[in-house]
């Protein structure tokens, strides 16, 4: 019995539905499909697509907070040109964003695999240890970053207290300890450190899931062939978690590159605008400096990088499915 025939029979058996035109429309997969898509489509159109377009338009104007509509002027690419040519902070911001993303992603990746391998062979206290290791990724980022703000405090840093004790215990004399957030390079390193702290559990738990899909037979076969622990890691473990690695890296690069909270809480972009990322600089220009058009332009500079990463992900997924 073909599908069409069955549907026709059913419709005939049910005069209630057949008699009601609206209800019978709902039995058609296309009509029902569009109807069910409507809520999500509404939200995405009005609160994602439209604001994105609006943001592009804003970035082409001189719009400021509280400016009357009659004064808002279309100025073409002037904001972008100003940022690239005359703005002193923009290039520092761009450089920081790439350094922050590059270094943090690399270290999170390495630590994440290491931690996943450790967690994978654990037997005792398994659930408790996994939950504990996950905490940094789970709790609200600003709240945990406040703890780091106090850990990096210029006067009362616990790291510096420990360093001081260690130096005098070794008989090396007095050491003040570095100003973790007061020096441009050190501040960027501190911010990157907190990002690594927060992101490593996400890598580890995802890789752990990947490790558990690798068949034990592969390890046994490798062991029979005389492979050492490292060889097994390179030739069995790493290829085994490759699919999930791509997803995790793409997701993590996007989140890290567009990060806001850690820098906002720890340095607000300081000292002297040396630790801004695109997001925090956009916030400073638009919300503190009131220049909405220019701020929109700053945040749109993230777009090409995000688009490249997303396109790579889509191509990769398509190739895997084929």
């Amino acid at each position, binding site marked *: 019995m073909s599908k069409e025939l069955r549907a026709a029979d059913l419709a005939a058996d049910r005069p209630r539905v057949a008699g009601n035109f609206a209800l019978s429309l709902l039995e058609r997969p296309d009509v029902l499909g569009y109807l069910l898509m409507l*809520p999500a489509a509404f939200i995405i159109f009005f609160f994602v697509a439209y604001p994105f377009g609006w943001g592009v338009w804003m970035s082409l104007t001189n719009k400021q907070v509280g400016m009357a509509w009659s004064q808002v002027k279309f100025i073409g690419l002037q904001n972008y040109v100003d940022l690239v040519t005359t703005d002193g902070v923009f290039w520092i911001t761009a450089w920081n964003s790439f350094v922050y993303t590059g270094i943090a992603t690399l270290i999170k990746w390495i630590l994440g695999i290491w931690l996943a391998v450790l967690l994978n062979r654990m037997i005792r206290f398994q659930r408790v240890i996994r939950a504990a290791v996950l905490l940094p990724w789970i709790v609200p*980022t600003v709240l945990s970053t406040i703890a780091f703000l106090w850990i990096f405090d210029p006067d009362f840093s616990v790291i510096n207290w420990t360093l001081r004790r260690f130096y005098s215990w070794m008989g090396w004399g007095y050491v003040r300890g570095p100003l973790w957030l007061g020096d441009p390079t050190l501040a960027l390193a501190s911010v990157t450190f907190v990002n690594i702290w927060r992101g490593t559990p996400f890598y580890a738990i995802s890789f752990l899931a990947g490790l558990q899909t690798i068949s034990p037979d592969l390890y046994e076969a490798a062991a029979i062939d005389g492979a050492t622990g490292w060889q097994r890691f390179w030739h069995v473990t790493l290829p085994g978690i490759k699919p999930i690695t791509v997803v995790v890296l793409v997701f993590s690069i996007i989140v890290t590159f567009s990060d806001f909270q850690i820098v*906002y809480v720890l340095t607000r972009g300081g000292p002297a605008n040396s630790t801004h990322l695109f997001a925090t600089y956009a916030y400073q220009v638009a919300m503190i400096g009131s220049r909405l058009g220019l701020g929109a332009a700053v945040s749109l500079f993230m777009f090409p990088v995000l688009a490249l990463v997303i396109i790579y992900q889509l191509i990769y997924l398509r190739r895997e499915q084929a």
Partner: protein
Amino acid sequence: MAQSPVGESFAKRLIVYHLPLFFFLLFALFPFYWMLVTSIKSTHETYNREVNPYVPVACAQTIAGQARSLSFNGSALMENCFYHWRTLLRDTLFLRWLRNTLFVAIVSTLISLFAGVTSAYALARLRFRGAGAFGLLIFITYLVPPTLLFIPLSDVIGNLPLFHRNLLNSPWALIVAYPTFLVPFCVWLLTGYFRTIPKELEEAAMIDGATRIQAMIRIVLPLAVPGLLSAAMFAFTLSANEFLYALVFIYDNANKTVPVGVVSELIKGDVFYWGELMSGALLGSVPVALIYSFFVEHYVAGMTGAVKG
């Protein structure tokens, strides 16, 4: 896994396995220990560079003294250990922020779950023109970060034509904004979940005379309850953790959420109320952490399911 620990010497296990794991745990947990210790120290201890900062001396002595003499003195405990907690709960708007956070998180989760269920069902079950393109659009939206949209979105939400008053500075601004990242997340998670439910169950119900919508509501949704629950929990925690929109869209102290309230109201210029900040950070983290740790296995399962395609 085939890497059996049997046959390895204790020294090797210690160096290769136990020590690294210990340092990972230390690395992960130290900031939380630091929150706790700072929140139960007196202000005097906090700002004394000579005493050992790792131990809350006054509080520890109070507890040890009471334990030794087997006498419980609540007010001494309150003064020496929970002074900052009391200040936070009594003298700041923390509880108000908590209520705002819960309200925003619950309402935006419900909205997102509804939109997520309908779309996910359509994508998983119905064949119609444009379904593939729509799935792609949702996937891309999932990857768009809030930092790309917050400036124009505040403009858009401030000028919504449907509402008579400006939504900015009210919880509704966040309830409108949060579904932008929650809906794609729910669709992604639930589409995978619906695909694991056998089609035959619905088809049998429809042969017995149920309409497609009846089959969806009576057959598929009850079977999808675990998936719905984990989607709801993740949506809830994602909205409770959100910071940027809450920072930009809300100005009045009384309307803030916990993350924004703690950061902006307990730091006044150069004055940091460290005890209260740490109590707030701890109290704001605990509920989310508890919810998450119960559901994280589902998240991982969903993630690997998505990867396996």
